[in-house]
């Protein structure tokens, strides 16, 4: 199945294509965690995750056509 992954802000550096939006091929039953591992994003680098605009966690199951956004960890000042 194909899912669209948008890497926000400095997470773009983990894109294999150099683009902030990438389409990834996953196996049915895989979770968001699989995307993070595939892209090699360290645990302390990503913060929020949304699927189709809704906040979620790394253990959410994905389905064909999902749009995943990964945000950097909130740091603030």
């Amino acid at each position, binding site marked *: 199945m194909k899912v669209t992954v948008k890497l*926000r*802000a*400095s*997470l773009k*550096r983990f894109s294999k294509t150099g683009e902030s939006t990438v389409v990834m091929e996953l196996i049915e039953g895989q979770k968001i965690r699989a995307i993070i591992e595939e892209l090699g994003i360290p*645990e*302390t*680098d990503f*913060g*929020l995750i*949304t699927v189709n605009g809704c*906040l979620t966690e790394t253990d959410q199951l994905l389905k064909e056509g999902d749009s995943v956004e990964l*945000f*950097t*960890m*909130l*740091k*603030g*000042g």
Partner: protein
Amino acid sequence: MPKGYMGKILRVDLTAKTVVEENPSEEILKKYIGGVGLSGYYLYKETDEKTDPLGPDNRLVFMTGPFTLSGVPSSGRHSVAAKSPLTGIWGDADVGGTWGIGLKKAGYDGIIVQGASPKPVYLFISDSEVKIEDASALWGKDTFETDDILKEKHGANIVTQSIGQAGENLVKIASIMTDGSSARAAARCGLGAVMGSKKLKAIAVTGNKKPEIFDEEGLKADIKELVTVQVQNRGGMHEHGTAEGLIGNELSGDLPIKNWKLGAWGGNAEKISGEVMTEKYLEKRYFCGNCVVGCGREIHIKEGKYAGVRGSGPEYETIGCIGSNLLIDDMEALCKGNELCNRYGLDTISAGGVIGFAMECYEHGLITEKDTDGIKLTWGDPDALMALIEMITFKKSIGALLGQGVRTAAGEIGGIAKEFAIETKGLEFPAHEPRCFNGTALTYATSNRGACHNSDLGSRFFEKKLTMPEIGLMEPAGIHTVEGKGHMIAKLQDVSGLYDSLKICKFMVWFNVDNAKLLKWINLITGWNMTMEELLIAGETGYTLRRMYNVRCGISRKDDTLPPRILNQPRGEGGCGDRVPPLNEMLVPYYEAKGWDEFGIPTDETLKRLDIFEICKR
């Protein structure tokens, strides 16, 4: 004298026009370390509940720590402390840049300023002389101009710290600014007004001295290895600065929106994020002393209404407080507002707090155009922001009241205005939402200087990602958990105070610095053989003494709270839109972990354990 320190603190009496050197004992240095810890010791001894914060008896203490000028990463910081004119209790502000390093190069660990000069003066401190100089020509100048003039006179190698017009005018949300247009701010608690009350316009430092380091080679080797890793890992903080995560801050519900009333802003954070700043206005990144992360921004707006804005770009806190909190989504206007605050020496956090308060009062008819010289205080209007910054700085019309902070302003205005005053202990909220993170709620409620995001080492990071085994935090605690949260915040506050005493940036928790590193470094620098337990107790001792300062000023459990809007009203939309913080459930375990009684007063047993019973009961 232990190594790592210069061993000298300057005491400047501006009434008597005298300067004397004092030598703190090794016992005191080991107990309070430096920075905010050591400042607390002096302030506790020399001021009390009767001290007028804007009177000559108040002390204004500038303090470095053993990490300053040691080469430790991100150690270009210093503490400023005084009794706060904004809150009437303990006040401190921690600031980056290079001024602390400059002071130590001049040969001093710190400065205690007392008394008040009848005429404007500045201090010139070099490694060969200390002079109290006439500052008549500087009075009325902003902080950027002051830096330029002093550099022209004393040379480009000096580092300055100064107040702007807000501090001169004793505005109670005035900051003290360092490093000229790079504009690092000791912003909180109105310490700029304390400096103004002493007619002290600036302090310029320069020199070539250096503290002796116990094991310089060992320290250098350890730092070299770490810095290589830090450069590899600096990621988003380097690329987009502290405002990188702003879009996520809105999504998660962390961002203040419309004076803390709303939970979502329709994605408008996209327009004012760190990425926008990088793309459109960034000239270069700013690095505080000994830092390789470089989260500071140097920006330039070249065209349009705000053309000419140049220097430090707005930090996350600034964008949150004068941006989303006021519904202003114009990045260039925020850069301009930030520059005005920096030049005038106004705390951008408190400025955003009082302006949000004023806009809500205006919406409800409690402030009208009669009070504002005809200015409409409309949400989202950058012109209203600029006008109020001017009015607050120069105490014009409603600005004179707003400059006293939201607590005083709400009391004066009366009616439902108190509903709009978002503060704890009189200090306006920074830009992280306690309804989103339980740890932040407990920290805002209990911190010594009032609503403070910087006194728990960023507990939200330890709720989501980080651990600290030395305080029993073996895995991230979770943002909505209650159990264990009291203990976690109690201990994180102590460790946070330790960072502010050693003098190292708290962002280092993201960049491979942990408590073991702090311990290794302080022993390599000083030659002490401290244990982890002793180091953590030093943090706890300083924190507890500052609490005792507040206890003496009448602070107790009644003050360890949050404003009604935060405590009782969920925002109804956005991240965590249905939540209010379970403050009371966390507060009792917090007091227990601190060794304080049911009223939030440190017990005699605790004071004796920390060996501060005598100083507290004198």
